[in-house]
C-alpha cells in the first residue's frame, strides 16, 4: 500500500476543493480499500466523505425515494419508508454481498464504481433514477457509461440518488457463490405507462433489455415473455458463468421478477 493523505472534510464544498485527478472519495471503502491495499490503485489524497452529514439519509415524497450517497446498504434494507414505497429496493439492498459489506458499503460508492455485477445500477435504470451530484442532475441511463465507468467528471461528487416510485417492482439475483455479487440481476419495474427490465451482471455495463421491457409494457404477465429468447452474444463469459448460462438466467430471472411483483 502506498501512503496517501487522509482527509475527512465536514461539507461538500471542502470535499470538492480537495478533489483532484489523483484523489478518491472514500465512502464504505469496500472497493477502494482492497484496491489500494493490493496495489491496484494508488492516490495522493483520500477524501473520506462519511463525516458529511448531508450525504446520508433517506427521504420519501409522493413520487420518489431519495437516498443520500453515504447511506449504507443495511440502512436501506432496514428502512421502513423504503420498504413501504419500493420494497424491491429494500430487498435488493438486503441481498448485497454479506453482512459486513452491507454495513459498510454505500449506494454512492456502488453506483460511482459501476461494477458490471453490482446490484444498485439495475435499480437506478429500472426506476428512472436521477443522480444528484454537487454539480448537476444526471439521468441514470446517461450515468452508467461502461465497465467501471460513469458520467462523473473528475472530482464530481454524488450527493444522492432519487428513485421514481413504481406501481410494482421486484429484483431477482443469481449471486456469484464466492463474492455474492450478481452473476445476473434483473430489476423489473412497472410504472404507470411502461415497464423497465434492467439487467446487471450480464454485460460490461448495466442495460435495459428493450425487448423484454416492450413485451411487458403491453402485457404485464409472465406469459408475455414466456419463450422470449435472450441472446447470449455480447454477454460476459468467465470462469463463473458462460454467456449461454447468463442468457438463460436473464430470461429466467426476468420471469421470476415479474412473478415477484
Amino acid at each position, binding site marked *: 500500500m502506498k501512503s496517501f493523505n487522509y482527509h475527512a472534510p465536514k461539507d461538500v464544498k471542502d470535499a470538492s476543493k480537495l478533489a483532484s485527478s489523483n484523489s478518491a472519495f472514500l465512502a464504505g471503502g469496500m472497493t477502494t480499500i482492497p484496491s489500494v491495499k493490493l496495489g491496484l490503485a494508488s492516490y495522493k489524497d483520500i477524501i473520506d466523505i462519511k463525516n458529511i452529514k448531508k450525504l446520508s439519509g433517506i427521504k420519501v415524497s409522493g413520487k420518489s425515494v431519495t437516498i443520500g450517497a453515504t447511506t449504507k446498504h443495511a440502512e436501506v434494507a432496514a428502512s421502513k419508508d423504503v420498504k413501504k414505497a419500493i420494497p424491491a429496493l429494500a430487498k435488493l439492498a438486503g441481498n448485497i454481498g454479506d453482512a459486513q459489506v452491507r454495513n459498510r458499503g454505500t449506494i454512492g460508492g456502488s453506483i460511482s464504481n459501476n461494477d458490471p455485477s453490482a446490484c444498485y445500477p439495475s435499480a437506478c435504470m429500472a426506476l428512472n433514477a436521477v443522480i444528484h451530484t454537487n454539480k448537476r442532475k444526471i439521468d441514470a441511463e446517461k450515468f452508467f457509461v461502461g465497465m467501471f465507468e460513469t458520467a462523473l467528471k473528475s472530482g464530481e461528487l454524488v450527493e444522492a440518488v432519487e428513485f421514481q416510485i413504481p406501481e410494482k417492482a421486484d429484483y431477482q439475483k443469481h449471486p456469484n457463490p*464466492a463474492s455474492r455479487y450478481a452473476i445476473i440481476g434483473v430489476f423489473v419495474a412497472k410504472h404507470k405507462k411502461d415497464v423497465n427490465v434492467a439487467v446487471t451482471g450480464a454485460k460490461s455495463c448495466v442495460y435495459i433489455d428493450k425487448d423484454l421491457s416492450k413485451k411487458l409494457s403491453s402485457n404485464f404477465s409472465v406469459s408475455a415473455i414466456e419463450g422470449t429468447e435472450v441472446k447470449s452474444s455480447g454477454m460476459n463469459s468467465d470462469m463463473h*458463468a458462460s454467456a449461454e448460462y447468463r442468457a*438463460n438466467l436473464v430470461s429466467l430471472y426476468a420471469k421470476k421478477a415479474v412473478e415477484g411483483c
Partner: protein
Amino acid sequence: MASLVGSRVERKEDTRFLQGKGRYTADINIANQTYAVFVRSPHARAKIKSVDTSKALKSSGVVAVLTGKEIAEDKIGGLIAGWAIRSEDGSEMKVPANPPLAKDVANFVGEPIAVVFAETLDEAKEGAEKVKVDYKVLKAVVDPADAMKSDAIHDGVDKNLCYDWLLGDRKAVDEAFAKADKIIKVDLINNRLVPNAMEPRACVVDYNTASEEITLYTTSQNPHLSRLVMSAFGGVAPENKLRVVAPDVGGGFGSKINVYNEEIVCSWASKKIERPIKWVAERTESFLTDTHGRDHVTHAELAVTKDGKFLGFKNETIANLGAYARVFGTVTPTYLFGPCATGVYVIPAAYSNVKAVYTNTAPVDAYRGAGRPEATYTIERLVEKAAMELGMDKTEIRMKNFPTQFPFKQTLVHTVDSGDYVAGLEKAKQMADYAGFEARRKQSEANGKLRGIGVSSYFEACGIAPSAAVMSLGCGVGLWESAEVRFNPTGQISVFTGAHSHGQSHDTTFAQIAADELGVPMENIDVVHGDTDKGTFGMGTYGSRSLTVGGIAIVNACKKIVEKGKRVAAKMLEVNLDEIEFKNGEFVAIKSNKKKTIGEVAFACYLPGQRDEMKSPIPEGDEPGLIESSFFDPTNFSFPAGSHICEVEIDPDTGNVKVEKYTAVDDFGRIVNPMIVEGQVHGGIAQGIGQALHENTQYDETGQLMTASYMDYTMPRADNFPEFNLGFTCTHATSNPLGVKGCGEAGAIASPPTVMNAVIDALGGQEISMPATAEKVWKACKTMKKSNAKAA
C-alpha cells in the same frame, strides 16, 4: 467420581477464543523487529537470469535484502519430501531440490526469489518492489494429465514423473476381471483445493546474539518436527539452539505441517542480520503458496457379478504434486490413498497404480483426509454406479460386500481390527428415513425439482503412527507420540504433549482423560503444547492422530504416576504395596481403609527427608518428585468407519443444488467428548460439501491461479448446509488402551462422494465432475431433458 471420558464437557479454550484472547503468531512482537516481505515469482515457470537488489538496498528503511545466492552460499538446505516412495520397477522416486529462495528457476507463481527486511512493513513492501528480477519466461506445465507428455520442468526428472507406483497384483486383478459379469468404469477428477486456514501462515524469529539461540514462533501443526527438519535438513541451527513455538494456531488442515520457505529464510536471516524478524502472509500469499490438496485424475474399474458381488478393482491415477514434493506430498497419493481405495468391501483382487507428476503449480500435500477422501470418492462412485447399472438398491449392494468378520484383512495393506459396517449403514438408513425417499422425490418433482439420494460407506486408516509400519512404507521418521505429566508439589498438574491443537480442543479432551486417570478435577490440569522448550518431543497433529497416539501417551504417563504413587502411599500408610488400591484419586489401604489422596502423595514426593515424626515417604529405589513421561507407538493404525446419506434437490432452471438432508453415522470407537467430536464431524462434512459443490481451484494455461481470492474462490458457508443429522455406532479400537479411533478427517472423507452420488442420482445417473457448480448441473439438466424427450 463420574467418568469425564464420554461427557460433553465445555471447551476450556472457548473462553479465550470467544473473547478474542487467543495469542497467535501475528500477535507477537519483539522489540527492534524488522519486517520481511518476499519477492515472489509472477511466472509459473521462468529462468532467473539475474536479481538486482541495489535499488532496494537504497530504499528508505531497508535493512537487508537476501536472495537465493546468499542462502546457497551459507549452505542452508531446502524443503524436503518426508516419504521415499519407490516405483513399480523398483527405482527410487525423483525429487528435485527445493531451495528456500529460488536461485536459477522459478517453478510456480508465488515461489519466493528474494526477501527484503525493513524497519516497517510498508518500507519492506516498497523495497520489495524495487528488487529487479530478470526472467526468461518458459512454457509452463499446468495440467497433470498432460505433464508426462510435456517438457521436463526439473533437471533429471524425466517426463515430470516422480514415481510410477503400484500396490497390488495386476495378474490377480486381470483374472478376476475375466470372471466378471459386468465391469463398471469411472473417470474422475478429484478437484484441487486450497486449504484456507482462517489464520494465514506467519513467523516471528528472534535470534539471541548472546546465547546464539534462535526462537521461531510459527504457525505450525508440529513444532518439534519443524525444529528437527530445520536443524537436520535446513542446517539453520543445531537442535539445542533452536526453539520452535507454535502458539495458538488458527486452523491447519494439513497446510501447516510443512516447514515452509519463509520460516527457514527468516530463521537463517535473523542470525545473519542480528535483528528479530516478523513475517505474516497476506491472503493472496496463502492462496498462492500454502500447500494445496487433492488434484487427482483417476480411471477406476470394478468387476462385479450380476448379483452384485465385487470381484476385482483397479485404479489408475495421475496425482499432481505441484512444483515440488513436500513432507506428505509423496505418501498422500500412495499409501494414504491406494490401500483405502478398495473401501469397506471384501474385494478379492485389487491394485492401485499412481503416477505422481510435477507441474508448475503450488505444491500439493496433505489436506484434511489426505488420500483417503480421494480413495473413498473413487470406490464409492464405482459402487453407486454398479448399483445403478445392476438395478440394485444402493444400500443392498454395499451390505452384500461388507466384511462381517473382524479383524478384517482388507485387500491391499491394512488389517482392520474392529468395526461393524452393517450396523452403521442400518442406522444411517433409519436416521435418514431412507425408505421414505421415494415420496420426497415425488414431492420435489411436483414442485418442478429433481431430488436425489446418495450413500457412501467409508473406512479410513488414521491415527498416523505405527513407526514400524510407516517406516517400512517409506516414512523418514517414526510416528510415535510423547507425553510428560508433571504433578506439582501443590497439586496442579501440567500435561505436556507433543501433539498440537489448532482447532482440535486438546486442552479439554486431554484434560478429561488425564483427570479420569488421576482422579482429580479437570480444573487442576493444564495441557501444555506447542513449544519445543516445554515437554519432551513430539510428532505433531495430522492424520487424526492426536488422541489415538498422543492421548495414549498421556494415559500411559498417568499410569506411571499412579504406579509410583502406590509405592509412595504404601510406605506412607505402612502397608504392603499389594494392599494399596487407587480409586477416585485416593490411595486406599484395603485392610485398614486408611487413605492418602493423590495430592497428599504428590506433596510428599517432594519432601524426601526426615524431620521430627515425619519420615521420608520415598521408598528405596525410587527418586523424589512426581514426574513421568511416556512415548507411545501403537501396533496399528486406527480405522474409523461409517455410512453417510445425503439428499439434494436441484432446480433444473438454474442448476442450483441444495443439500436438503445430511445424515452421518460414524464409528470412532470410544468417544471422549461427544460435543467436540460432533464439531469435528460438522467441520469435515462442511469441507467435503465445499469440495463437492463449491471449491473450484483454477489455473489458467500459463499457470496463473485464477481463484486467488475470496471474490473468486467459493468457500462453503453456513447457509449452504442443512442441519447435519449425526449418529454413532461404537466398536472399540484394539490398538490402544482407550479403544479410541481418529475422528478429525472422517467428515471430509465420507462427504464428497455422498453428495456427488446424490447429485448424480438426481441427474438420472449422468456423470458430473466436482465441484458440481450451478452451471454444470444446469447443462446436465438440459441434456437430461433432451434425452427424456427422445425416450418419450
